């Protein structure tokens, strides 16, 4: 493979991806807030910090909301999946080493075996999500081709990372694929349904405030 291409995706492209990710998400948040100001400013008259946080926290506590108890398997998988999704990329030793090389900074790392298992878990969870999409009628009815693509996009960096780490298949190729798919995912987050990382809590905050502040009722 072209050496300069590899250099590009390992160097500048990393920066670009992070920039798109951060600027994209911040921009999106700001845009939403400005749009609310412009078109639906009433939202601010109902939004309260107390009820927003109350609702978001309630929905972060495993098996606290009733809905999570009626779908225990899905939520269990979903909790573990999201935990892995955050922990592995942020606290993987080999990622920290990269951070160290570029910025001379370092932070706590995950034990490699734990990281390995979490990776397997994330991949298995994605498999479960795909299976669920295909087999549970009410989910299948809503599922579009794009939804499977999203699953694939998350799966790729984890699968390639895992294979590269264990050096089972062509190591170099795997690392390249890993970096590219990771970058792709970072870039796509602000522009796809992955942005529920931002819109999810915002939506929850508003519903939580409407329920808590106006209607004096719980929303979990």
């Amino acid at each position, binding site marked *: 493979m072209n050496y300069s291409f590899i250099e590009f995706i390992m160097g500048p492209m990393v920066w670009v991806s992070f920039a798109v990710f951060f600027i994209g998400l911040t921009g999106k948040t700001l845009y939403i807030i400005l749009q609310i100001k412009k078109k639906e400013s009433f939202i601010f008259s109902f939004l309260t910090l107390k009820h927003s946080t109350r609702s978001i926290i309630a929905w972060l506590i495993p098996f606290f909301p009733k*809905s999570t108890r009626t779908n225990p398997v899905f939520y269990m998988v979903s909790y573990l999946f999201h935990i892995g999704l955050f922990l592995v990329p942020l606290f993987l030793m080999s990622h920290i080493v990269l951070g160290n090389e570029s910025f001379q900074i370092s932070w706590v790392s995950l034990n490699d075996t734990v990281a390995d298992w979490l990776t397997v878990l994330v991949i298995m969870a994605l498999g479960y999500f795909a299976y669920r999409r295909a087999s549970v009628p*009410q989910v299948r009815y*809503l599922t579009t081709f794009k939804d499977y693509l999203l699953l694939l996009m998350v799966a790729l960096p984890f699968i390639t990372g895992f294979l590269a780490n264990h050096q089972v298949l062509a190591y170099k190729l795997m690392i390249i694929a890993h970096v590219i798919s990771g970058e792709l995912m970072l870039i796509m987050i602000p522009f796809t349904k992955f942005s529920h990382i931002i819109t999810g809590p915002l939506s929850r905050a508003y*519903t939580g405030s409407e329920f808590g502040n106006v209607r004096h*009722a719980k*929303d979990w």
Partner: protein
Amino acid sequence: MKENAVLQNELNSDSAIEDGLAKLNPERITKVIQEVLYKETGPRFKAYVETCMHCGLCADACSYFISNDSNPKFSPAGKVKRTVWEMIKKKGNVSTKFLREAVHISFLECNVCKRCSMYCPFGIDIAYMMLLVRRICHKLEITPLYIQDTVNSHAATSNQMWVKEDEWIDTLQWQEEDAREEFKNLRIPLDKTGADIMYSVIAPEPKFQAGLIYQTAVIMHAAGMNWTMPSNPGWDNSNMAMYTGDNEISGRIAKSFYETAQKLKVNKIVMGECGHAFRSVYDMGNRWAGWAMPPFEVVHALEFYHELLTSKRITIKEKYRKKVTLHDPCNVSRGRGLHDLARIVVDMTCSNFIEMTPNREHNYCCGAGGGVINCGPPYKQERMDNNRNKADQLRATGADVLIAPCHNCHSGLEDIVEHYKLNMEVKFLGDIIYETMEKKIIHPEDKQ
């Protein structure tokens, strides 16, 4: 098992919908849909559509889904797919056949009960989106006949049931006269400026259930309240326009209601046992009229009864002994958190209470709410089919009496009880209080 009409693809419709559809042309359809979806809404709608992960977790929340053997078409997000997604995909360029279905989905397959918002991990407000679809139908003039008639009545008379002004006043005076035969000095004070309470009801009370006004008068009399009822238009607190997407009329109704209270210079408004009316004056109508929160203290009957009983203004002679259960109306439990107060009142008045499950905020809608029952007889059979889940929930209580502190719920539950042969008596909480209370006579002058 009998299949519901919707599943057989013979969609129920009515003459207003059909006449309206016949008059539409593609340009108008596209224009209206784009106007509503892109101009009238904002980031909230966009966020709901973008955030929905198509996970189907909201399905379990919805009675329509459960009653129809988990048919995915009836899941909350399924209904959004069948309406909003398609409208977005086609940029508003949809057929009249599609619109016929959209009217049906938004008006007859959703009670806008918001239960699904408690099951979606993001709290996506599907009811809001169904109301948007209704708004589109309203602007295209394809609203179902019966509910549109109530809105027309609102627009022309400021009440839902074409009650004429003299009829209204006559009814109140007739109830007062009747009650005075039993209770000396009882009054239903009309237009008493400066009273503490303005009492308001929905138009079906004077039209069909005047006895409820009688009961309230007796309760007010026994409690020695300083109250009044307005004689002029604005007395009706119901608001069907809120459910047909006719936001302009909806705001107008709420505004004239508050203005009536303002003219009477009362301290607070107490309203009868109605849920949607409460939603209108507390949550929705006020917003269309420009108030974030109602400009008056609005007290729902449940809260009022609680206050009367706990302050001992009313005492219970002997508790009601039959086995009772309580239905939490969406608009005052999920809509106002009054479920615990309701239980205190039931506890103080009944000796044999059994919970239905799920309950409180999680209770299932009666199946009549959100304007569904108001779409009238053409849709009654399918409403009964869609209420199977509610019937199962009621049957499981084994109660003899079903307390439903909401007019909509009351009517809808009576239909269910009859259709599914549940052998229950449906009552308002006021009925129970009236039956069990000490009807002592207090002269307002002595109290003050």
